[in-house]
C-alpha cells in the first residue's frame, strides 16, 4: 500500500524568507512523487515531480524539492517566499510496484501563508 503524510497543516513564513513544506511517503517499490498547488476555488496545479535521476528537482515558480530515499521524504522548498505563494500545497505519491493501480495518493495538504 502507498501512503503520504504532510505533518504540518499550516506553515507561516515572512516574505523573502526561505520556505519548506514537508512530505514523507511509504511505498512497496520505488516512489513517483509529485507536488501540486491549489489556489482558492481552483483545481490543483502541477508544480514538480520526481521519477528518477537527480535528487533535487526544480519546478514551476521557483519551487524545488529534494528527494531523500533514506528518510522517505520529498520536501518542497523555495529560497525566497512571495505573498503570491500563499496557497494550499499537496504532496502525492504513486508506487512503481506493478501490482498497484495507476493511482495517486494525496496528502492532506499544507496551507502556506506568506506574510508581507
Amino acid at each position, binding site marked *: 500500500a502507498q501512503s503520504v503524510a504532510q505533518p504540518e*497543516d499550516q506553515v507561516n513564513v515572512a516574505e523573502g524568507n526561505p520556505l519548506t513544506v514537508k512530505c514523507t511517503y511509504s511505498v512497496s517499490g520505488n516512489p*513517483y512523487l*509529485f507536488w*501540486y498547488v491549489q489556489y482558492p*476555488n*481552483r*483545481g*490543483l*496545479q*502541477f508544480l514538480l*515531480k520526481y*521519477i528518477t535521476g537527480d535528487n533535487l528537482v526544480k519546478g514551476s515558480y521557483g519551487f524545488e524539492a529534494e528527494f531523500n530515499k533514506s528518510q522517505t521524504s520529498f520536501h518542497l522548498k523555495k529560497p525566497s517566499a512571495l505573498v503570491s505563494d500563499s496557497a494550499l500545497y*499537496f504532496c502525492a505519491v504513486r508506487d*512503481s510496484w506493478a501490482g498497484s*493501480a*495507476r*493511482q*495517486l495518493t*494525496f*496528502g*492532506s*495538504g499544507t496551507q502556506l501563508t506568506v506574510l508581507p
Partner: protein
Amino acid sequence: NAGVTQTPKFRVLKTGQSMTLLCAQDMNHEYMYWYRQDPGMGLRLIHYSVGEGTTAKGEVPDGYNVSRLKKQNFLLGLESAAPSQTSVYFCASSYPEVGQPQHFGDGTRLSIL
C-alpha cells in the same frame, strides 16, 4: 485552451435526489479520474478510467457510478444523494505514461441537504 472543464460549478440537492456531474477534456488524455476533496482529508479517488469504455473503483466508490462512453468525457453519477456526499468534486485527466502529471478542473461544489 480549455483543458479540463467541469459542469456544473455549484449545485444544491435534497437527500435522495440524483444528479450527474460532467467532466470534459480536450487534451486527448487516455486516463480520467474523479476525486472528492473534504477538509483535512486531501483528495480521495472515487473512480477512474484508463480508456474509453473502461472504468474502475478507487478508494471511496460507494454511492457513485461513472461512465466513459467517449474518450473526452467522464461522467460521475449520484443515484440517491446523501448528506455525507457533500463535498467538492474534482475531475482530472492525464496521459498514461509513467510520471505524467494529472490536469485538474476547477471543481464542482455540491451540497446535499
